[in-house]
């Protein structure tokens, strides 16, 4: 047991100048009820010892920066204290740069405290008890970033237009389905069969038989690549299965890492947004290593990033698969492996926003335990290459699963990167958000924080990167009371391949996001602009550090946009309203996408072709 009785502590800087560490300790010790005596810098050893005797202290804390000859000086101090008979009752510790426990032992001190020491460690030493890190301070809780919003429309006209458009969508989709929706329904049955078997309600034979039948039906609605994988065992190029021993060593790695892991915090104040990083190196193992590192450096959430070919292929593969290129293959096994490796406080988003497997992705994410997903019909169709009709049908099914599994999802607007003006992208986002609300789901608005291509052309961001990004948030706030999660990632197109520049711009965009009071942000690594190979772990640390520092720097300080921001916001709102009115005039959301109302070829947007003609009318 420790001695928490009031201690008398002598603080002696042996450097020619006062050490800030000792001053911090003085405050911390006094705050904990101990009495301290701070000596001026550069006292002689004998004078320090005399003071310790006079004041009858129980502890002496010395600070000194290490350098040539300093070791002997410090050992000499300890020796003198010992010869004076002081060390029977007085304990002596050394703190300073380059101090390690081994060195403290060599020099004869009772303890040594190096850079990064928690003041509680020194307090524990003074009180004569073992230091047990206070994990509760570091423990994090998952935050529901969609909580507390009414989704009420402040802009009545836009609200009315959105409802009309959603009515069109429901009418249009009423008699339609797609291979993607059917596969998701089959997958639901597979998951149910598995649950029934695991509950011991059917025999293994019955289960396997049922599963084989479902698998057969699944393959009927899948592409050749998927059929060949299951029937002939042909694995797609650049993909390989992971071995059992690889899996076992991964599990051990995760266990060991968790046991010694501390978790930093990126946030400095409560109002700072939740911070997400993306992963998707291609290999679930590397992903997990990056996730663990990201968690320990303060990432609150991680986003599963799948390869683009996965979105263009009907059907999922199975098993533990690794992939050599950008994006990690979605299979139930891969997702489970990643889920099992996550820290309990880490938010997990599995993105499903585009492509031919959208409903099934949301279903698997929900069933396996993801916290969030990502869906946007308009972006999937106008920015990610999926046929608008197909994307609409699959999107509706996906949103229904999101509602069923209570997965809030962001409605990403990355079509802006192709050159689509923000107001058009936002119109699509608001339609999907309204659709989601009508289906009982929780959409999160995701305006892009970037150097907008639209503005590159018009010169609207020539002065600063603040106004237009701020205008997006201001405009959306004037329309609806909804959660916001700028991304994805923030600072897009402002980053270069230089790590300092890249980290800096991410940090500044994070500060702007925080100043605007958004709920979450997705950040890139400092490799964001580098396209020659995979992202590396060190580059992920860079931006987490940068964002931490940006939050620390600004605290509650607000960034003040110029008057131009208000003007941009007004233009965005007017633009959104105009687009929505055009859709209403058209009388069909899907047709509006084909006709370029949500992004035209002159903007750089083309309606996607993947999955075209594969909408099934019942």
């Amino acid at each position, binding site marked *: 047991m420790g001695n928490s009785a009031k201690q008398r502590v002598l603080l002696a800087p042996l450097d020619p100048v006062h050490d800030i560490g000792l001053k911090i300790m003085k405050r911390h010790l006094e705050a904990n009820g101990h009495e301290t005596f701070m000596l001026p810098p550069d006292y*002689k*050893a*004998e*004078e320090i*010892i*005399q003071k310790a*005797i*006079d004041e009858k202290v129980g502890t002496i804390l010395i600070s000194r920066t*290490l350098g*040539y000859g300093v*070791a*002997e*000086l410090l*050992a*000499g101090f*300890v*020796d*003198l204290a*010992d*010869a*004076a*008979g002081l*060390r*029977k009752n007085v304990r002596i510790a050394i703190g300073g740069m380059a101090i*390690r*426990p*081994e*060195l*403290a*032992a*060599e*020099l*004869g*001190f*009772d*303890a*040594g405290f190096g850079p990064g020491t928690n003041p509680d460690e020194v307090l524990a030493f003074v009180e004569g008890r073992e230091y047990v890190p206070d994990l509760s301070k570091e423990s994090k809780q998952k935050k529901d970033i969609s909580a507390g919003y009414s989704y009420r429309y402040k802009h009545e006209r836009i609200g009315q237009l959105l409802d009309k458009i959603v009515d069109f969508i429901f009418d249009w989709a009423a008699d339609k389905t797609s291979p993607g929706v059917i596969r998701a329904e089959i997958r639901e049955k597979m998951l149910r069969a598995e649950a029934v078997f695991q509950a011991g309600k059917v025999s293994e034979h019955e289960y396997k038989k049922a599963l084989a039948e479902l698998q057969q039906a699944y393959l009927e609605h899948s592409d050749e690549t998927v059929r060949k994988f299951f029937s002939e065992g042909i694995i797609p190029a650049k993909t390989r299965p992971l071995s059992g021993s690889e899996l076992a060593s991964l599990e051990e790695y995760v266990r060991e890492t968790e046991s010694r892991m501390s978790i930093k915090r990126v946030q400095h104040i409560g109002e700072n947004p939740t911070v997400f990083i993306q992963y998707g190196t291609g290999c679930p193992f590397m992903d997990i290593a990056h996730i663990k590192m990201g968690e320990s450096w303060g990432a609150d959430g991680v986003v599963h990033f799948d390869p683009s070919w996965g979105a263009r292929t009907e059907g999922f593969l199975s098993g533990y698969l690794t992939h050599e290129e950008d994006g990690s293959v979605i299979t139930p096994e891969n997702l489970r492996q990643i889920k099992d490796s996550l820290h309990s406080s880490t938010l997990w988003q599995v993105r499903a926003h585009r492509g031919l497997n959208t409903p099934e992705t949301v279903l698997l994410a929900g069933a396996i335990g993801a916290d969030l997903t990502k869906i946007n019909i308009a972006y999937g169709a106008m920015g990610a290459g999926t046929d608008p009709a197909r994307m609409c049908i699959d999107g509706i099914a996906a949103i229904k699963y999101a509602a069923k599994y209570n997965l809030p999802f962001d409605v990403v607007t990355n079509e802006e990167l192709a050159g689509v003006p923000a107001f058009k992208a936002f119109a699509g986002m608001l339609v999907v958000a309204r659709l989601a609300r009508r289906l009982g789901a929780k959409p999160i608005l995701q305006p892009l924080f970037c150097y907008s291509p639209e503005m590159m052309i018009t010169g609207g961001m020539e002065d600063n990167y603040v106004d237009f990004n701020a205008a997006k948030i201001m405009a959306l706030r004037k329309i609806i009371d909804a959660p916001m999660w700028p991304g994805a990632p923030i600072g897009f197109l402002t980053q270069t391949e230089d790590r300092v520049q890249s980290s800096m711009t991410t940090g500044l965009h994070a500060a702007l996001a925080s100043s605007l009071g958004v709920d979450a942000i997705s950040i890139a690594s400092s490799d964001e602009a580098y396209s020659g190979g995979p992202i590396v772990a060190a580059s992920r640390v860079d931006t987490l550090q940068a964002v931490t520092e940006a939050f620390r720097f600004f605290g509650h300080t607000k960034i003040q946009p110029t008057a131009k921001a208000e003007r941009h916001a007004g233009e965005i709102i007017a633009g959104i309203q105009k687009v929505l009115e055009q859709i209403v005039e058209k009388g069909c959301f899907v047709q509006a996408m084909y006709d370029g109302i949500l992004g035209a070829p002159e903007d750089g947007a083309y309606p996607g072709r993947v999955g075209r003609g594969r909408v099934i009318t019942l």
Partner: protein
Amino acid sequence: MRVIGIAGTAKNTGKTTTTAALIEQTGRAGKALGLTSIGYDGEETDNVTGLPKPRLLLPVGTVVAIAEKCLATGSAKIQVLKRLGISTPLGEIIVGRVAAEGLVVIAGPNKEHQLAEVLEQLKALRPDLILVDGALNRLAPMVETEGLILATGAARTHDPDRLFRETLDLCEVFQWPVLKTQLMARLLAARKQPDSDWAISVLDEAGKVQMLEGKSLLAGQQVESLLGLVSPRAKAILIPGIVSYSCLKQLLDGLLSQPVRPGLVFADPIKLVVSQDFFDIKIVLDRWREEGGSLALLNSLPLLMVTLNPFYPAYCDSTRSYTAAFIDGDMLREKLSRRLRVWVVDVKKPEAQKILQELLDFTHPA
């Protein structure tokens, strides 16, 4: 059984090399060895300079008292016999026996009173010789040993003349006479309780003892009070703790202004040599003797040998790293041998083995 301490005057003066040579010699004589350290030594690279350091190879049967974290670091297999409940920055001190030969990192208790306890535990295992390895320039705990080997060398200063003078000064203190038994008895009798600590005391011709609060002389007012107790009949002044240069100078200036020349008594040589101003202290003490004063010790600590290491790490400014450099060790060793009553040895020279053999002299136990 003997307990020998190996203390250095600085880092890289050859403590570990000396300790290793003694270990080898003990093994050659087929004798059982006990080993501990007052710090941390024998690690792969020097913590400050980054240069590799020799590590200690311990034969089977050697008993050691080391911090727990050392167990995992070396290559020797050590069977833990006892845990001593003494904590150090590298964990609790354990007593163990080497079960399989190998290299060992030795970090032991780093305080005088802890070393006393550890030595009791090692003695109970009855080795023929116990070695206490030093750390850096640390000396204080060595008062618990029965004899000291002083490792010095160019790493302390590579000015051979200065090294010569400093070594003479250091060694001279160890050769001071021990206080006469009769005076010792008077001082002992004056203590309030037999086991209480010594205090600063003045003994007069009549055998009367006057005492001050405290054992170390570090404050100017203390010196004033002490001078106030000194009568023309003062016979001896005991300072059982440490003394600062300025206080000692103030005291001796005060005494020299009077005709009185009491003997100055210190607890042991270590109390003086640990001072960072030792060489200045030595100058005023020498003057005190020249003026007719005398010096004595309560307890002696025999100096057995001086080892002289010609090596020093030379700091290169342009590369900001250390490289090996040497002074002319042979000449300095000869010069010192002529002036000192103990062996002066370079343990890396072939003739050193014979001297170590003679020093340890297991045929005639001390």
